[in-house]
């Protein structure tokens, strides 16, 4: 059974903004057990807990490339636009982003007021 080869968690990932916590088993850009995908940032990842396929991974979060905070990939905490930026830093530097991102951030602000039901 695959359970024998269960990856041991390296530690607990905790988002410094929303406090989401989950055990991570790898940090880096090359997720273990798959050669087909690389990540474009240093990511905290765990084996996808909702899949029985052990090659499937789930990116939990990464460091904000502006302030260095560890943040989750959730839409209320950070966004990725060629690099990870936490939402507070995005807002502080909103003018550095293209209009599409600016509009998107506006939308998120409104949405995060009510409990979002992300697909």
């Amino acid at each position: 059974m695959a359970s024998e080869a269960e990856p041991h968690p390296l530690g607990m990932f905790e988002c410094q903004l929303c406090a989401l916590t989950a055990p991570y088993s790898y940090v880096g850009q090359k997720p273990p057990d798959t050669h087909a995908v690389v990540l474009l940032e240093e990511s905290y990842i765990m084996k996808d807990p909702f899949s029985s396929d052990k090659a499937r991974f789930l990116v939990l979060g990464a460091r904000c490339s502006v302030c260095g905070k560890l943040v989750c990939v959730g839409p209320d905490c950070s966004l990725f636009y060629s690099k990870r930026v936490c939402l507070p830093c995005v807002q502080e530097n909103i003018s550095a982003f293209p209009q599409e991102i600016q509009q998107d951030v506006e939308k998120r602000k409104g949405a995060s007021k009510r409990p979002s039901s992300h697909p």
Partner: protein
Amino acid sequence: MPPPRTREERDHRDRHHHRAPREEEAAEKWDWNCPETRRLLEDVFFRDEDYIRRGSEECQKFWAFFERLQRFQHLKAPRKEEKDPGHPKRGIPALADLPRAYDARYRINLSILGPDPRSCQGPGRRLPPERVSEFRRALLHYLDFAQKQAFGRLAKLQRERAALPIAQYGNRILQTLKEHQVVVVAGDTGCGKSTQVPQYLLAAGFSHVACTQPRRIACISLAKRVGFESLSQYGSQVGYQIRFESTRSAATKIVFLTVGLLLRQIQREPTLPQYQVLIVDEVHERHLHNDFLLGILRRLLPGRPDLKVILMSATINISLFSSYFSHAPVVQVPGRLFPITVVYQPQEAEQTTSKSEKLDPRPFLRVLEAIDNKYPPEERGDLLVFLSGMAEISTVLDAAQAYASLTQRWVVLPLHSALSVADQDKVFDVAPAGVRKCILSTNIAETSVTIDGIRFVVDSGKVKEMSYDPQAKLQRLQEFWISQASAEQRKGRAGRTGPGVCYRLYAESDYDAFAPYPVPEIRRVALDALVLQMKSMSVGDPRTFPFIEPPPPASLETAILYLRDQGALDSSEALTPIGSLLAQLPVDVVIGKMLILGSMFSLAEPVLTIAAALSVQSPFTRSAQSNLDCATARRPLESDQGDPFTLFNVFNAWVQVKSERNKNSRKWCRRRGVEEHRLYEMANLRRQFKELLEDHGLLSGAQAEAPRDSYSRLQQRRERRALHQLKRQHEEGAGRRRKVLRLQEDVGSSDEDHEGPASQRADSVDIQDVKFKLRHNLEQLQAAASSAQDLTRDQLTLLKLVLGRGLYPQLAVPDAFNSGRKDTDQIFHTQAKQGTVLHPTCVFANSPEVLHTQGQEASGREGSQDAKDQMSCRHQLLAFVSLLETNKPYLVNCVCIPALQSLLLFSRSIDTNGDCSRLVADGWLELQLVDSESAVRLLATALQLRARWESALDRQLAQQAQRQRLGQEEEAESPAVSPREMATLSRELLQFMAAKVPYSLRRLTGLEAQNLYVGPQTITTAPSLPGLFGNSTLSPHPTKGGYAVSDFLTYNCLTSDTDLYSECLRSFWTCPHCGLHMPFTPLERIAHENTCPEAPREDPGSEEAASAAPQKASALQRPYHCQLCGEDFLFTPTEVLRHRRQHV
């Protein structure tokens, strides 16, 4: 796996590829939906080493996503041109290199390393490059989408966990546990305690956590849920352990297990060293085992100061649990229930008008009507009706279905434990739009089964509960008012998903008069099994055990007495060898005894099956009772010998069906009205029994498999691998999906409406079948099943003897006038209960003539005698497994056994008159024999056979107990009971059973039973009959009078209205051995024959005679070697004489 390609396909593809390079044309004709195009792309991107593999579920999801993306881009494409590309201003250096021109691709944090079609060989080369990049881009978006989706699930899970009422109390629970050894967590349904507390412990670093549940099903579902929530759904941190299944491994940190299983672990390791924390869930339900476990823990805790215990309870009687553990702290968590409106609708008026026993369904229909009138159909919400029992459910079901077919707004479904599993599952299906489910349930839906979407509850206020009458050893199913706690629980079912309404069909004043809590199980049930377990765990005298609430002393005494009678406890109430073995068998004492006895007589295989069959619920479905086709199909499996044999036949036939290829056992069962699930349970139980018997040396271990040729070995391995794969696929497929119910669900004839979907699913996997084949060695089972068909008459007789001895004293005698009664009016009497009837499922209920003695033989010798004093040698008794009282007292699972011989062999007390022509067994059954000489002989043989049987059993068990102490290794030792000894014993038992002695059988009247004995005699003359019953010394019986011959036989203690002096009449007789000629009474004559010094002695080589020392000389029949004809016989002395005369 790609399907094998046919030639045509390939041709077609080739043609396609020829065209592909001509790009202009391809651009026009390019079709993403073309299967060949897709296959080609899959060949390139979804190889086995890629993130998505072709043919997988993921692959299908991708294409679905792809189609949506295509449509989306098609809509968006024209607008894109109009957009004004903004010019972002430069910000801080960290963001200096952000790409200026926006592209959605920059928002994706991953990249695909897949093969570059331009550089790679193979089919990919022929794809147009821009299509490939388009595909790549879509794939990238898909992976990003999949990441977002999975992360969204994770975040949602955490949000939901955090929103549970108990989430605020997690730290407090952990903190309290740090400071105290025992903590009570009290919270109502929906507060999340069962799923969250184990996870808090896990997060706090505990790694040896056990959580007990009263029900097996809860262990499985909680392990699944907690595994999912703690993100180790596919890991092994969280597992469960129930009777036949375990997902536990060395890596398991939390295990959900049944209370019974934990108690067995304590039995093996009394200090429970394997656990750090023990969670005992649902303590408020007050199950027998839970109450016992609490008592054990209270004693254990001082010796295990490092063991932490969390008791989890609904907010019912919390102080009871807290104070039991020296005022353990309580963490009380509010529940999460939506407001529920309570409507009291007392029904007094109607109840007086209908005097019949049947429930009046009108109040229930009125609620259905009220709901229809008050709530628009588009407002969803189903109805749950609590009724007391199955009869009530079917009454309301009929009425409600009539109403439903009229209004087309309801689907009515029953829910109770006797339904087939498939029918039970229907309550989880969803009703079509505008239609509500109406679930008619017993109290099973109060705690055991949780159905979502219930908005309305109707509470009848009644429950049928099993109560136990220790005097009659009778289980009684009676209707009671429920407790306030149950009423609240029922009400709460309406408020789980939204605000609800609870209609109580009783008055508020009734509610106030309800008992606050239900009666704990320990006050309602037979305590035999509990006492036996307590004894085997050496917890001391059950009478002084510190139960949280003590059981009624009378039930305890009855249980102790019963166990003593059954030989499980000795006179000082210590566990006997048989008792300690019985304690390890997870079955009724009676069935455990059968197993032990059966294995001694080399009847292990059939007894294993029968014991398993008697330990599960009846596999016969109720609906099939009235179905003529089912009855006809079942007929060939029915046995005249009794229900256990019918079950035996059913199981064996089923195993045969299973082992035949391409035969559908599911269909086979359905046709016969058999619930297959029960047969699977039997197979599991049978296997467990077998292992237990092997562990205890009562059954030689599994024979080494016969050497097979490499081909069949390979074949077998291949089959197993295929089965494993099927099982995995099933597990990944997440099992059963909810279906939409049909409006006119024809519940009454569930067979027909199963036929449709089942035959459509003919090629789908029967996962039960797969699991069965993986778990069991079908070949072995089949061998056992086919050997069952070849049981000889003798084996069958022995088997019945084993069952009878196991079931004794659960015996019933047919009423004397049964032969004149209708089939349905047959009456039977047990010692404690008169006028019981056969359960409708009983085989004798359809053919009671099997039990009649009349007409089967000419017994007219005593022509003047009336029916009740019928002389016959074929009187039968019924040995039954249980006595159940519902509207009538029913005998359940009956076997017929020959009366005289069975009573002589099993009875705890046999009393005789002076010439032994009148016998009374256990003070309630009288047997009159015509011939006192044969009566004495039978008695003497019975005495001797019983002693030898008992001694063989004791030695067997004693040796087993010793071996257990010394360790398993010393198997080389010669067996305590030689096979030859058992063979001799079996042969002699069979001869005894075959004896044809006419007698009458009747139940004594109460008055007769009271004045049965002559009582102690003032003048005690020493009996002048040495050796009448072997050389046991006769001593005057202190209470009955007469003489105690053995622990069960009392000679000449019965009062008699016949001539007092008849026994003194002597006639002249000459002893054939010593030639003594003098007047003898019949008894004196037999006594002389037994002790005559000249009579042929028994074979000195027969070892059993030596072992059964006390009864050495008592055998009337002895091996006799005739020197004249050179043959061996088993003869009584008179037979020897007769034989010798032949040679003269």
